[in-house]
């Protein structure tokens, strides 16, 4: 699986893991220092207690029992050699009365442990490092008996504490990363699980286009934000569908409402024209109005054709046919228009190019583009047509050698009612919808149209239509075909 650092999943995991690591580090550091102090304090307490016992039971009576007894007792009762302890008693004159022997584990040599400050009068604690890397913690106390001050030292190796701390560090150092890894992996999986309904919604949403507004997203019954998300999206799609249905019903109603008065205007005017005694001036005026009514009718026609195509309301009659053949026969039917203006019309469609589409509408594309080219090419010019299959597309090209299109006009050429410039439109009657209709038809077929200026002058209109890769046709066309 590819990791995308901006994905919700990655971000959640990153935050989650970061937080977890921070908490573990703080906790580990705290536990480590607490344990460290606890172990040290415990050792100190034990040593202090031992000092107090030795002082109370042995040193207090040293003047009565004598030094040999004390030494014997210390050796026998505290067995420093076996317990790995360090005990040393220093006489008031600074000579050592007693020092414990080598401990069982040989971790330190009691003879080489330096003497503390003999002037000390109160109890204190120190840490002495010994050869071999370990260290001893030693509590020293000055004990006064019969006016004499004996210095009693009791120590213990810190080896045990270091062992515990080492083990603890190992647990922290190895255990925590493992735990974090497990938790992150688990979290990654869980977030994936949690996001699965979202992915389902996204997958479904991708198949819904303007032409499939009757479809709905799957509602995941999770009872949380994800369910509200799918429900909310579905409500939005429903509103969209409603708006679209309204718009297209409006367009069809409006179409009918506008046609009827136009029919009446036209009919009444024609009735007037049929009167042979009509005054020539009136006849001229009525004729002019009739022409405008005709133009208005064409405008209404064109606008509704576009709106139906764009709203997906138009019924497409899809069949398979040879685009080359369509272009060649259409060119023949229109040839006289070109000859009338002394324009050379040539075509190049050597191979059949089979496409799936609405033949009548695509023929209109050919007719409109040809008509447009002939209109805008100066007398004596040339118009060239070509059809070929390129990759997965059928490409139909109309090239003229006129003066091309002003670069500023290129982006708007297919807009409704857009006229390129005055020179181009002079003397040409039309609705300004021809190219818009052409584009709507191309788009409705899942194709495209573009216009480019040719470097050697003139311009090319290029229509691209998807070739029918069997079983992989545009969803809309497929659906319309099933309906037809």
């Amino acid at each position: 699986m590819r990791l995308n650092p901006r994905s919700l999943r990655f971000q959640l995991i990153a935050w989650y893991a970061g937080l977890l690591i921070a908490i573990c580090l703080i906790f580990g550091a705290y536990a480590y220092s607490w344990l460290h102090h606890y172990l040290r304090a415990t050792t100190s307490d034990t040593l202090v207690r031992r000092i107090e016992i030795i002082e109370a039971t042995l040193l207090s009576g040293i003047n009565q029992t004598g030094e040999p007894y004390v030494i014997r007792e210390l050796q026998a009762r505290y067995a420093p050699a076996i317990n790995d302890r360090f005990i040393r008693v220093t006489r008031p004159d600074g000579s050592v009365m007693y020092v414990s022997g080598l401990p069982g584990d040989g971790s330190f040599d009691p003879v080489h442990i330096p003497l503390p400050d003999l002037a000390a009068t109160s109890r204190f604690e120190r840490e002495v490092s010994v050869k071999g890397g370990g260290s001893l913690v030693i509590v020293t106390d000055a004990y006064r008996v019969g006016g004499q001050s004996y210095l009693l030292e009791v120590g213990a190796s810190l080896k045990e504490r270091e062992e515990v701390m080492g083990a603890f560090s190992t647990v922290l150092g190895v255990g925590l990363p493992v735990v974090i890894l497990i938790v992150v992996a688990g979290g990654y999986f869980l977030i994936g699980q949690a996001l699965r309904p979202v992915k389902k919604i996204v997958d479904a949403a991708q198949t819904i286009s303007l032409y499939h507004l009757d479809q709905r997203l799957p509602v995941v019954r999770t009872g949380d934000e994800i369910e509200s998300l799918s429900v909310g999206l579905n409500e939005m799609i429903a509103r969209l569908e409603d708006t679209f249905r309204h718009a297209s019903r409006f367009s069809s109603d409006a179409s009918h409402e506008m046609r009827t008065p136009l029919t009446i205007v036209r009919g009444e005017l024609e009735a007037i024209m049929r009167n042979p005694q009509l005054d020539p001036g009136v006849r001229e005026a009525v004729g002019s109005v009739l022409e405008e009514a005709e133009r208005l009718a064409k405008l209404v026609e064109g606008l509704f054709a576009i709106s139906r195509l764009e709203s997906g309301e138009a019924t497409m009659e899809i069949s398979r046919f040879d685009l080359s053949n369509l272009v060649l026969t259409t060119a023949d039917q229109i040839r006289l228009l070109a000859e009338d203006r002394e324009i050379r019309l040539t075509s190049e469609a050597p191979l059949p190019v089979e496409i799936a589409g609405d033949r009548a509408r695509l023929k209109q594309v050919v007719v409109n583009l040809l008509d447009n080219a002939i209109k805008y090419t100066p007398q004596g010019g040339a118009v060239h047509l070509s059809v070929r299959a390129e990759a997965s597309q059928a490409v139909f090209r109309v090239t003229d050698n006129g003066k091309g299109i002003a670069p500023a006009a290129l982006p708007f050429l297919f807009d409704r009612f857009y006229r390129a410039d005055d020179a181009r439109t002079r003397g040409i009657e039309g609705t300004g919808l021809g190219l818009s209709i052409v584009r709507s038809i191309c788009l409705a077929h899942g194709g495209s149209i573009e216009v480019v200026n040719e470097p050697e002058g003139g311009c090319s209109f290029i229509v691209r239509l998807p070739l029918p890769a069997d079983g992989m046709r545009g969803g809309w066309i497929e659906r319309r075909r099933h309906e037809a």
Partner: protein
Amino acid sequence: MRILVVEDEEKLRRFVAKGLQAEHFAVDGAPNGQTALEFLASASYDLVLLDIMLPGEIGGTEVLRRIRKRDKEVPILMLTARDGLGEKVASFEAGADDYLTKPFAFAELIVRVKALLRRGPVTRSNLITVGDLEIDRVAHQVRRGEAVIKLTSKEYALLEYLAVNAGRVLSRTMIIEHVWDQSFEGLTNIVDVYVRQLRLKIDEGRERKLIHTVRSVGYSLGEEAG
């Protein structure tokens, strides 16, 4: 010949009726489906002109269906909105004989009505004569007087269409639909160009012109302007 015009728009119904009466048809008008069915029950008609969008419970398609239930023969010409292809298909399936899209030229209405009325016993003559113009529909040969006139296939189709409807004004839209097809509808000037070409061959240099232009309406073929 009696024609029933079913159309809810009163003005439209009236001028269609007036125009048909001028062509010597007897015309009844019905504003809705209910009235239309009553008319049809009480009289017999040679043709029904039926708007597909009718107000009320009985729409155009329903009227069509009920007429066909009783009468399989009477020709029915539907008035439809352009691009409602589904509508057209449905009305043909329900038994309409032809359709006309609004807004239509009256001339076109007359041509279609007459075509429907003479359907059946049509005299499909192989030789059409208009003045001294002769069109042989089998050999696709055209003569004017003694001279044989050579025409391209489109020119011939145009001339034949004008000749079959000689004396009638044909609109550019009708000519385009008949000689070309609907894709060319925006290009009314293509008709003008072809008619000009045809005139050069048929009328040029002759005293009596056969092709006539009717301003704002279309063209007609005949010894007198249509």
